[in-house]
């Protein structure tokens, strides 16, 4: 069964067309990178998958179910949230939030939830910081805690929105290693405006600027990129040659 399926999805926000006829099929264990300019609708697309934004037209299926039902299979790492760094909360408590949706109303976290949260922290190598207030961690460490929060719900799909913004390049490498490890057991969709870094690490690439360009693999043509970014490919200075070379070979 496909992990995610979007069929002819149209989204308008405040009367403006944001997503135009999106068709997308994501298979299990895919590692899909979605790139595109800022304002191209990348975050909107993730929110449509999560059921936070209702499309005007079209169908969204998560493992064959509606987003409201299917989102329990999804772990979500939002765009580096503008959270208050002085918010009185420890890493472990942040990660526990990931269990909140699974538990239902009128319940409280039990030992099993804490164990699962601690295991998620261990996976991202942050267990030793479990009692550290989130605001006292570095940007990269915070990002790991937010990934642990998504993992705490034991998801089958991981959605990441611009996860490497504000994280320095060395840490980014480690970060992609972690994702590669996680990809062995779950489907990953990663959204970023940074083509160069993403293209090296993902298995599939899609381009999004209102319309989605996706061929089920890592190929994108020069013309498509130029159309999406509205500028010549040469201007996209650090363009990864891997994408284009492969295409030219064909």
């Amino acid at each position, binding site marked *: 069964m496909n992990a995610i399926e979007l069929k002819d999805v149209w989204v308008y926000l405040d009367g403006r067309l944001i997503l135009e006829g999106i068709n997308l099929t994501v298979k299990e264990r895919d590692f899909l990178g979605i790139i595109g300019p800022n304002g191209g609708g990348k975050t909107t697309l993730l929110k449509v998958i999560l059921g*936070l934004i209702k499309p005007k037209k079209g169908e969204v299926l998560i493992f064959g179910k509606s987003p409201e039902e299917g989102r329990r299979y999804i772990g979500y790492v939002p765009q580096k949230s503008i959270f208050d760094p002085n918010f009185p909360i420890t890493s472990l408590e942040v990660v526990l939030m990931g269990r909140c*949706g699974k538990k239902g109303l*009128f319940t409280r976290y039990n030992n099993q939830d804490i164990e699962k949260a601690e295991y998620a922290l261990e996976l991202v190598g942050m267990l030793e910081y479990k009692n550290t207030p989130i605001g006292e961690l570095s940007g990269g460490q915070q990002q790991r805690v937010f990934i642990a929060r998504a993992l705490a719900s034991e998801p089958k799909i991981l959605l990441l929105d611009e996860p490497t913004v504000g994280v320095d390049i060395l840490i980014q490498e480690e970060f992609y290693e972690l994702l590669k490890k996680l990809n062995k057991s779950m489907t990953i969709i990663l959204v970023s405006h940074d083509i160069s870094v993403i293209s090296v690490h993902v298995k599939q690439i899609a381009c999004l600027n209102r319309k989605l360009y996706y061929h089920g693999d890592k190929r994108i043509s020069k013309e498509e990129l130029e159309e999406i970014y509205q500028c010549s490919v040469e201007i996209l200075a650090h363009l990864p040659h891997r994408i284009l070379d492969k295409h030219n070979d064909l």
Partner: protein
Amino acid sequence: MIYEFIKHAIIAGIFASIICGVLGVYIVLKRIAFISSGIAHGAFGGIGLGILLHINPIITALVFSVFSALGIEYSKEKSKLHEDTAIGILMSVGMALGIILISISKTYSVDLFGFLFGNILSVTLLDVYILMCLTAITLLFFYFFFKEFVVISFDEEYGKALGIPVEKLKIVFLMLVAFTVVLLIKIVGIVLVVALLTLPAAISRRFTKNIKNMIYLSVIISLISVVLGLSLSWYLDIPSGATIVLTNGIIFLLSCFKE
């Protein structure tokens, strides 16, 4: 007779501190202090209506506060009006309406000063019972929805992605705030309500990085300031509401030296 008044005042003060301590943490973390102040001022319209119709003004104020709270929330979510504009309109229109209604009622014995700045000695046994119920409801709500409270305070959008009924729970929180605000009017008055709802939580936040401890500490600070404020106002014969708020203010100033 005088003993009864003081007894009511102190018991009401204790329950009010517990509610304010707990709810204040939500108000401070969600930064909705201005909303609570707006609800309090809007409720004055209800007080005027109660006086005009000769019903207990607290009941009409409760109705007004609920509609004010819903109105602010609606303007925030649905209309293009900015939240601070909506609150500004609501609080001034509410106050104006209250003044007009009281003036039409030709009731000259109304303790306007009491409504604006509080008079804890006017608290009746019925008020104490209502406060008791509200305290119980607030504590139960925080007990059963603690994990949702944390998620909503930290990141609403993430809560929605988890499938938590964020909007509904926020309305319940806001209703609790609205009810608390109205019941606090007798104690500290419309103008000073927001102090009791924010200062204890703001002070406790300086001393802890744990949300549960922030709630406990906030209740303790609230209790200290209310009991101390009441005693001072009694012995020095100065207004109770203002004394409680000033006590809080002084504790806040002292806490600033911590850094």
